[in-house]
């Protein structure tokens, strides 16, 4: 890939450029101002996040990506209100938020469906908490289940579903509360490659059909480019914003675009940011000291020197 002549990831086609212009004219749903987080660890205080600024507009799809330990999970947990920030502010529709709330839906990496409730009752959970009547909650829940294509499973228990189906129910459950923003913390991380691709397509489909802003955490570069309007790249130690990339790949997205020049250019840029070229001595440490233990006559690949 590195040998290919790729255009700059900054070049946008007219269609993409006008799309971004229109997007930025929409109101800001989520604004993060000077967010910082420090932990006390056994080795002394650790700065997990430092001075994070960004905005997400209505109906925008933002992905957050970064090397492990860059604090992306901490960031989304602060946005969801599950952890407190040490500094800075999170504004939702211009109003500061504190603590968790139904206006910020969350889909977790692990399966967090309530195992004692059927699919339908899981989706009704938030609605009933808000004081929606039972009949109305049920009909709304069925609509959301329909939206994620699981109407046949509405009376099944979570343990009867596959991993992908569980995450679709989790998405429906979060959306049923009609949140302003949907926070997704590596929701497809535990799925196999095929299911994951299918789920990405589903998610874009759902996102297209409803008025929702999505903030999606991932460590998979392809996933980030395939889904996002803009990608927030974090770097580790401390977690800071490295770059905010506008993805030049046009919508609607499909899997053929994975080898389009814009896609590859963006991916190359992300790789530079996340896996910067290392010093020579570090590389040698990475190399395995391999002794060849195959039979002399066997046809094996040559080891690179």
């Amino acid at each position: 890939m590195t040998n290919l002549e790729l255009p700059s990831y900054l070049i946008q086609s007219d269609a993409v450029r006008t799309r971004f212009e229109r997007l930025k004219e929409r109101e800001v749903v989520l604004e993060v101002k000077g967010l910082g987080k420090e932990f006390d660890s056994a080795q002394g205080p650790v700065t997990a996040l430092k001075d994070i600024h960004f905005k997400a507009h209505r109906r925008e799809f933002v992905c957050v990506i970064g090397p492990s330990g860059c604090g992306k999970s901490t960031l989304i947990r602060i946005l969801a209100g599950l952890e407190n920030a040490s500094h800075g502010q999170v504004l939702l529709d211009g109003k500061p938020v504190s603590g968790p709330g139904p206006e910020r839906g969350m889909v977790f990496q692990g399966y967090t469906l309530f195992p004692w409730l059927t699919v339908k009752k899981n989706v009704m959970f938030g609605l009933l908490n808000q004081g929606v009547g039972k009949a109305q909650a049920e009909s709304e829940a069925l609509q959301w289940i329909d939206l994620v294509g699981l109407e046949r499973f509405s009376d099944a228990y979570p343990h009867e579903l596959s991993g992908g189906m569980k995450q679709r129910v989790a998405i429906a459950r979060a959306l049923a509360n009609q949140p302003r923003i949907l926070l997704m913390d590596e929701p497809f991380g535990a799925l196999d490659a095929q299911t994951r691709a299918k789920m990405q397509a589903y998610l874009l489909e759902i996102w297209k059909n409803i008025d929702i802003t999505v903030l999606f955490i991932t460590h998979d570069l392809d996933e980030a480019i395939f889904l996002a309007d803009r990608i927030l790249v974090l770097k580790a130690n401390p977690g800071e914003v490295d770059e905010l990339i506008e993805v030049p790949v046009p919508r609607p997205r499909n899997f053929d675009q994975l080898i389009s020049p814009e896609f590859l250019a963006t991916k190359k840029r992300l790789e530079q940011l996340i896996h910067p070229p290392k010093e020579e001595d570090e590389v040698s440490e990475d190399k395995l000291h391999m002794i060849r233990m195959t039979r002399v006559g066997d046809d094996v690949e040559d080891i690179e020197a």
Partner: protein
Amino acid sequence: MATVDILAPRKPLPPRLSRGLTVASFLLPLLVWAAVSYLPFLWHPEREITVPGGVSYFKEGMRIDADRYAQELAQVREQGLPLPEAKKVNPIYLPAPHEVATAFYTAFTEAPQMRSQQWLHESLWHSIQVIFWGFTLSSLIGVPLGILCGTYNAVSRLNEPFIEFFRYLPAPAFGALAVAILGIYDGPKIAIIFIGTFFQQVLVVSNTTRRLDKSLLEAAMTLGANRLQMLFKVVVPGILPDLYRDQRILLGWAWTYLIVAELIGTSSGITWFITQQARYKNFDNVYAAIMMIGIIGLVTDLILARLGKKLFPWEKSRAH
């Protein structure tokens, strides 16, 4: 058919083999017992006199050590007196299976020999009532307290250190105190079962509550659940199957405290029956009563396990 490696670690067994082994687990001890009882050459260390012969202190039906009997026999033979006769028997404390089975049956058909004595099932019913009240009272306070301790660290810190200390105090030690406060009838017995169960119960339930996946609570928070909803719509249903299992185990413990509980104040119940029968050397009745307790325990537990599967359909494989 493929052969089954029955010693493969943690491999499920074919259902027929599994059932067979279950039956065998009861049959094997029974078989050992029967062998020891019915095969005279196996153990039988005593002799039961059938004909006293020339030994002055021998009486019919008397039991004596085999060595002693041999001594006496040799002496009598030397003196040329009429020879005694005896059969090989086991000690009185080990009746044969059929004797216990008969005792088990007659316990329900024949009235007790003495007026003051109770029927086996009457004693048993009394014991069950004591257990029921002790366990119910303990659960009414212990389960909610345990859930609160497991959910809120503040409640846990306030209660658990003391409970942790108190559970080391042996419940029977409170016997005299319980009698002084609650009189001599069922009050102190229920209190002993309560003390024996309650403190363990709080700790066990709080631990079970703490094992609830924290991410379920976080998910509920992001779905806008308030504090009460978190407690009653997430924590309680979330731990219910485990709580049910804990209660089954705790109920087993309550039975062990019963034996002590029934010995304080006026003796009563199944323990009284057993000690009484042992005093009269009716060991067949003793075994029948012990077995009765075992059967009741096993049957209740089986029923509760079945019920658990019905009650918690979302617990697929863990429900036993």
